[in-house]
């Protein structure tokens, strides 16, 4: 779907996506990593369970919602990558935290 150019700024780091160890660059939008990582999706919808991936990349469409370090419904396009980020794809509706 996407490949990265050589010699990019930002340190090479590792993050976890659904428990899998994934290579990324510090400071790049998390959504960019999702679009390089099969199955290239961020979430399934609360209404029909349809898969969705990053679409607008500027924080307006809310389709790249993922769980980041335990916080649900974060827009992956607005989250800069840091080393050790724990990311989970989000399935269906969220529950309110107790």
């Amino acid at each position: 779907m996407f490949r990265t150019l050589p010699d990019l700024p930002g340190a090479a780091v590792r993050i976890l996506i659904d428990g899998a160890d994934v290579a990324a660059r510090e400071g790049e939008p998390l959504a960019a990593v999702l679009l390089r990582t099969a199955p290239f999706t961020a979430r399934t919808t609360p209404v029909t369970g349809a898969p969705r991936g990053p679409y607008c990349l500027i924080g307006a469409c809310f389709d790249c919602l993922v769980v980041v370090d335990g916080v649900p419904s974060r827009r992956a396009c607005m989250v800069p990558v840091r080393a050790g980020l724990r990311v989970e794809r989000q399935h269906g509706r969220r529950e309110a935290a107790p």
Partner: protein
Amino acid sequence: MSRPPRVDALVVGAGPAGMAAALRLRHAGLSVRVVDDAPAPGGQIWRAAEANAARAGTLGADYARGIGVAERFRACGADYRPGIELWRLDPGWQAHVKQDGALGRIDAGAVVLATGALERPVPFPGWTLPGVVTVGGAQTLLKAAGQVPTGPVWIAGSGPLVLLYAAQILALGGAIAGWLDTAPAGNRAAAALAGLRRPRALSRHAGDLMKGLGWRLKLALARVPVISVRAVAAEGEGRIAAVRFVTQAGREERRPAQLLLVHEGVVPNIHATLALDCVHDWCPDQECFAPRLDAFRMTSRDGLFVAGDGGGILGARGAAWSGTLAALGVLARGGHLSPAAAAQEAGPLRRRLASEAGFRAFLDALYRPRRDVLAPSGETLVCRCEEVSADAVRRAAALPGAGPNQIKAFTRTGMGPCQGRQCAATLARLVAEVQGRSMESVGCLTIRPPLKPVTVGELAQAAEQHI
């Protein structure tokens, strides 16, 4: 909690418009705070320009210009805070912001909203499939992550951004399977007419016309197929596998695709001005709502200004001039500049903006979106969040007296997390069409804060801090 900081002027957004406004306000010695949701200055057009200094050449001279502007902006003495989102704005003015999960408040004598544009939502069958990404989004990935598309990459849409992005990708060794040009057949004649009506605006922008022709030439040299189409659909299970289209001649085709990049121009980001109930007008040429602005770009709310594309699409150059103009408005209103001095400085800016608007009218006519994108039908989803189809919205719109807010309540259109950013314009359009009303009389969905997501926990914590 300590008192919130108070500044003479708050600028929201650090793109060309916001930076220009901040520079002029600082030149007059005002205390200025600039908040922006991105990690670095530049807005979308100059996204990550500083970080890309080494490769700016391949992204074009217009992009490289952002580096110098960002440098001047950083040195101007404005209190620049990246990574901050505005989630609520109250007249007077109090800005409620969020950073790293913590809420805060900034008080300001005046506010300049420089929140730019969004890509126009482009509803068509399959537009919610993973692998359908906007052209602007793909370009953001290029700037912010050095990412170029692979596999069979199709582009469907029209507008200068399509040509610019395609040229950038080709220059970086990328490949494009084909460009499905969605501009309706009548656009060229309409654009020629618009150009003939403003020959001086067109001749003044000969450089821009040449730039556009240059991009087209690059596509032709790379043998990128350009196919004029009247309908597009994405197909696939779980993600896009193919793009289906109908050519202008009526032939149906289906091609394998890993990525479909879509674009039908940009529209003003009006969430904040809508939430403040500012007066908005329908702009038929640009097919969008925009806040009504005075000669110094002040909205119908005293002390609230809009700089850049958020007040109507003019592009990056116009955005910078309008940012300076809004700053003059802030200065004149606050008594920091005499009305005569403000008018004198505003004159040349307004002339340049008028020239820019003349050229923009030509582009608007050339790239006017096809009707199906503005008023989709059938099972095409209008509301991505709540998955409401065009037919469901049309059925609800047939009920007597149903406006956008009632249809939202009936169908949940516009009730999801994007808060109508992707569907409000389509919803208004379908209501207007079904009920035979004008866009002005239909108006837009009511928008209320929070403009950006905040949790109940964050609100509770902020309340505790105020005690």
